[in-house]
């Protein structure tokens, strides 16, 4: 019994060694096929790592944005949806936002409640033919942290009382760094900002500082101005709408308890924590998420299809020799082991190359995204992504080889002799 087991083990080992030698020998003879298959798998792996890294980066960037905002709760009256006519802004459906935020501030545990509004506007510095479309962001004095990199901060905006026209305006704005650079605008310059092309030529503001806080959040050029001025240029002084009311709780208050308290007091509004708000924003990007998922599936399918077809080609070229060996009595398991060996080599090489190409591709994509949309570090990878990618590559190679090997085992020797 022991002798039989030992003989079986020795024979299996000899088969594996022979299959390994055959695999290497076959690849030496078919370098082009090997190269093409490896490139196919490497591209599939690269597509997967980059798509997953982009997803990770979006999550990480989103989380960072919420952390930077230094808010605890987000109040909205409906979905926080990107709108086609919003120029990258949000729907402003939270009406009478100042009164509402003042009310909310009076609740126990709330330190401040600040409305935040986004809408499309136009910026004209008098030197270009047409005003540039920008995202106008209205913030109140106690609003979310606006990081100013150059110049001064915005003044605290006054609350409209009965007649908005009676409120004194300061006509001061912040612009983002990229817009300042592109249009050669400096602190102290005068620009026109308006809710329409015509209005943009009539309403002048002084640039008091440079801030990219909301440019990084919206991915578009931004002009930040006091909330009352925002409502004035967008023609919404009557309803004073906002996209969000952001809430900071007191240091010793329990965020969850405050959230529950607000939810019961304002059932018509959505009250979300930072994490819930990020999830809600991401869930509204379902089409993009589905597209990314489809791309991953396509990349995987393309990798499998390419490897199967190339391995099938390799097997097809060797069909007569394999048939002759089967006729001679060589078992199909040795031939299948050889084909699987070829698939493994393709998977490991393709996976390694795909993973090796990921870091430079991430750097390139980050530079591109910074240039195009202004986000820094949009694509972020992690060690586990590499591990999963290599696993998938080996899986692609092995599964493709198993399909090709199965075809070898199914064919009768005389079919090819």
């Amino acid at each position, binding site marked *: 019994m022991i002798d039989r087991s030992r003989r079986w083990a020795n024979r299996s080992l000899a088969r594996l060694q022979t299959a390994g*030698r*055959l695999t290497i020998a076959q690849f030496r003879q078919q370098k082009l096929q090997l190269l093409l298959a490896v490139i196919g798998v490497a591209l599939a792996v690269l597509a997967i790592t980059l798509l997953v890294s982009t997803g990770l980066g979006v999550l990480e960037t989103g989380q960072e944005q919420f952390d930077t905002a230094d808010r605890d709760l987000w109040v909205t009256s409906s979905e926080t949806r990107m709108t086609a006519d919003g120029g990258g802004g949000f729907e402003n459906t939270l009406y009478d936002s100042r009164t509402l935020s003042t009310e909310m501030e009076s609740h126990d545990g709330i330190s401040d409640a600040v409305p935040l509004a986004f809408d499309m506007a136009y910026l004209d510095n008098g030197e270009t033919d047409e005003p540039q479309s920008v995202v106008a962001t209205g913030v109140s004095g106690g609003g979310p942290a606006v990081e100013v990199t150059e110049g001064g901060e915005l003044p605290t905006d006054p609350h409209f009382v009965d007649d908005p026209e009676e409120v004194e305006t300061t006509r001061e704005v912040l612009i983002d760094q990229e817009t300042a650079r592109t249009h050669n605008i400096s602190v102290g310059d005068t620009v026109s900002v308006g809710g329409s092309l015509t209005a943009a030529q009539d309403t002048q503001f002084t640039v008091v500082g440079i801030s990219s806080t909301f440019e990084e959040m919206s991915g578009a050029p931004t002009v930040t101005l006091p909330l009352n001025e925002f409502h004035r240029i967008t023609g919404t002084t009557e309803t004073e709408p906002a996209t969000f009311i952001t809430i900071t709780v007191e240091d010793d208050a329990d965020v969850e308890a405050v959230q529950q308290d607000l939810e019961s007091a304002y059932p018509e509004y959505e009250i979300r924590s930072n994490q819930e708000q990020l999830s809600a924003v991401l869930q509204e990007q379902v089409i993009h998420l589905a597209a990314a998922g489809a791309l991953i599936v396509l990349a995987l399918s393309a990798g499998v299809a390419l490897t199967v077809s190339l391995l099938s080609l390799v097997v097809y070229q060797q069909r007569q020799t394999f048939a002759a060996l089967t*006729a001679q009595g060589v078992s199909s398991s040795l031939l299948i082991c050889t084909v699987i060996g070829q698939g493994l080599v393709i998977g490991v090489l393709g996976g390694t190359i795909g993973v090796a190409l990921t870091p430079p591709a991430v750097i390139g994509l980050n530079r591109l995204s910074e240039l195009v949309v202004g986000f820094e570090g949009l694509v972020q990878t992690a060690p586990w992504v590499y591990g999963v990618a290599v696993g998938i590559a080996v899986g692609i190679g092995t599964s493709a080889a198993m399909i090709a090997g199965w075809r070898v085992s199914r064919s009768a020797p005389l079919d090819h002799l």
Partner: protein
Amino acid sequence: MANSHGQTSTPSAVVSASDVRKVYTQGSNPGRIARALGRSPPPTISAVDTVSLAVSQEEIVGLAGPSGSGKSTLLHILAGLEHPTEGTVTFQGTELAALSRRGRTRHRLEHIGIVFQHFHLLNSLSARANVALPLVELGVGKRQRRQRATDLLERVGLGDRITHRPGELSGGERQRVAIARALVTDPALVVADEPTGELDTDTGRTILQEFQRVAENRAVVLASHDRETLDICDRLLRLRDGSIADRTSRGEITG
């Protein structure tokens, strides 16, 4: 033991075929619906028709006949590569029909050596590795595999070519590697289909001498059109339309 054709299957026969028929169907049989719609069964071709023969040790039997006469099919049936539609094939007392697919593969590995017209060597392996490959299946150790392959290659005159790949060898040398591969498991029966078909006359003669040496302690069956190849046979069976049309002994062949 006599069959319907009066061919005696001697007890010392290495392989014997008794009333063997092989019928091929051209296309697939119609399904139930196709039959109900009146589709008739596909036509059949009888490749081998009620053939009996026995091949003894140290005997070379030649199968001759025009293309399509059934000689390759009969060769494959004797080698256990093909199942006869009717009749039995017995190899050293074992009926091949009783063996499973895996059993037949093992049977070929242990008892049959096959030489093909187009050699069918693995181009990526050396001559020695090609010859030694079937021994892996038999569980022979690496050193013994290399030694036996080297011995056989030396025997067929390729002692100085053992590390060469098939692409670096001439047609005759490749066929000698194929013969060495067929002999490496020490089979009782060697079958060859047009073994000199790809070779020039002089190289073909060298290969035929190899076959004569091969037959010294085993049975050999050759299928060929070539007169010189058939001249080395002890017995010659001429096939026509799947049946044996003529049997000739050595004296009659050379005479």
